[in-house]
């Protein structure tokens, strides 16, 4: 690990003024620093800022960026009104990691691409312009949607997938004191030619909260994660589904996907194929077609295309069928 300057911020304002890399839970950043994938010169410890509460606001929730994953998953309001978020959080990592990992940090978790982690490998995300060893290499865990000819790494998170389906927004503080509210839909950037730039955050901008709007009334929520072992593994495919029906017709549908793309993936066309429809096989197939029409496998990850279809159709069936 390269050495660095360390300071602890005592307020969000001081944190953004300090001009360094923020560290809170550290479960991802330190992992990468040990490998010198990340080599920040200055760490600003924000772990003791007063951003660790969940408050009710505007009919929804305002979640402090430092709320640990464990606490958020166990929050009675989250369990009652956003069970998809609880489920997604609990499907991620391990008990120990969830105790340390924070809401803001989890949004910014970096890819688990093998070649991003191997500093001898080519990786445009780690070293812009160096190439991509996943393209043409072993890419079983890589993206089938949203990738570019520069990068096909996936976002590894679970929590952000649920938040995407729940229409969350990210609240930030900029060094100039401005606050922003960024819909999660606009928060992540696709890799394109700049895979090292993953979000719209500006230098020094601090995530302070995540805002969840009121949950859709009468909606069912499911998070389903498919992985290589029963626990403690990243998603090959995951689906967060929030669907409401009225009199046999789908009136609200929000489907977000993990493991498929460089960011928590949501496609309006999927939902358009469902809203106003009866919950039929044809509608589910149409939704899956909409999701996967642009999907592209890279060899080892080709299986994600049929897998995503099967999981989506099953989740839709569970969301719209007779309650178990």
């Amino acid at each position: 690990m390269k050495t660095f300057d360390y300071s602890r911020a005592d307020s969000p304002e001081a944190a953004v003024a300090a001009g360094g890399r923020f560290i809170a839970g550290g479960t991802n950043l330190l992992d990468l620093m040990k490998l010198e994938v990340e080599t920040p010169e200055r760490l600003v410890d924000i772990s003791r800022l007063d951003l660790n509460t969940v408050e009710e606001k505007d009919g929804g929730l305002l979640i402090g960026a430092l709320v640990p994953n464990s606490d958020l998953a166990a929050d009675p309001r989250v369990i009652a009104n956003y069970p998809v978020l609880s489920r997604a959080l609990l499907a991620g990592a391990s008990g120990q990691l969830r105790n340390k990992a924070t809401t803001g940090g989890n949004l910014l978790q970096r890819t688990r691409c093998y070649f991003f982690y191997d500093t001898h490998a080519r990786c445009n995300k780690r070293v812009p312009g160096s190439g991509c060893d996943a393209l043409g290499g072993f890419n079983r865990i890589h993206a089938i949607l949203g990738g570019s000819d520069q990068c096909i790494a996936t976002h590894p998170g679970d929590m952000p997938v649920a938040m995407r389906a729940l229409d969350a927004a990210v609240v930030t503080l900029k060094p100039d004191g401005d606050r922003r509210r960024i819909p999660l839909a606009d928060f992540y950037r696709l890799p394109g030619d700049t895979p090292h730039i993953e979000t719209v955050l500006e230098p020094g901008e601090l995530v302070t909260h995540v805002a969840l709007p009121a949950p859709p009334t009468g909606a069912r929520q499911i998070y389903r994660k498919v992985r290589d072992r029963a626990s403690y593994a990243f998603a090959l495919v995951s689906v967060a589904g929030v669907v409401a029906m009225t009199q046999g017709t789908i009136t609200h549908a929000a489907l977000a996907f993990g493991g498929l793309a460089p960011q928590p993936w949501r496609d309006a066309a999927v939902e358009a194929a469902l809203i106003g429809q009866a919950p039929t096989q044809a509608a589910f197939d149409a939704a899956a077609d909409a999701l996967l029409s642009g999907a592209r496998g890279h060899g080892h990850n080709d299986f994600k295309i049929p897998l995503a279809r099967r999981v989506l159709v099953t989740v839709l069936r569970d969301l719209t069928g007779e309650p178990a």
Partner: protein
Amino acid sequence: MRFTINGSKREADPDIRASLLDVLREEFALTGTKKGCDHGQCGACTVLVNGRRINACLTLAVMHQDDDILTIEGLGSSDTLHPMQQAFVRHDGYQCGYCTPGQICSAVGMLDEVAKGWPSHVTDDLSAPVLNDAEISERMSGNLCRCSAYPTIVDAIREVHEA
């Protein structure tokens, strides 16, 4: 740097880069906390910080000023074993012993989470978790045991929970 470790105030002046794990092991000679992977992928370094189980390898010591840290040595010594330690011996919840302190600290932290009503990935009703064997296994899946003594580890934890 000041910490409370196993109930005692301790001071150290570690390298700014040092993980809590390395400070415990190399500065304070508390080598019961193990390093298996150093990347949060095995759980051998599990300790309780302010009562919560975490991976000591993935946190900087410098971030733990004044924190209350409990390691396996604080849980019980070889002649005054904690009930969880006793249960691991009785049920043979180990083989080589290397993951064991982490398993035990994790189990103690985990049962506390259950007592607080925290659900898990395999909980049917998120608001009312019931600790069965599947729950224990899921909640302990952040602790690898390469010897794979998982069934007897579950036995030990179940016994302590039911006691």
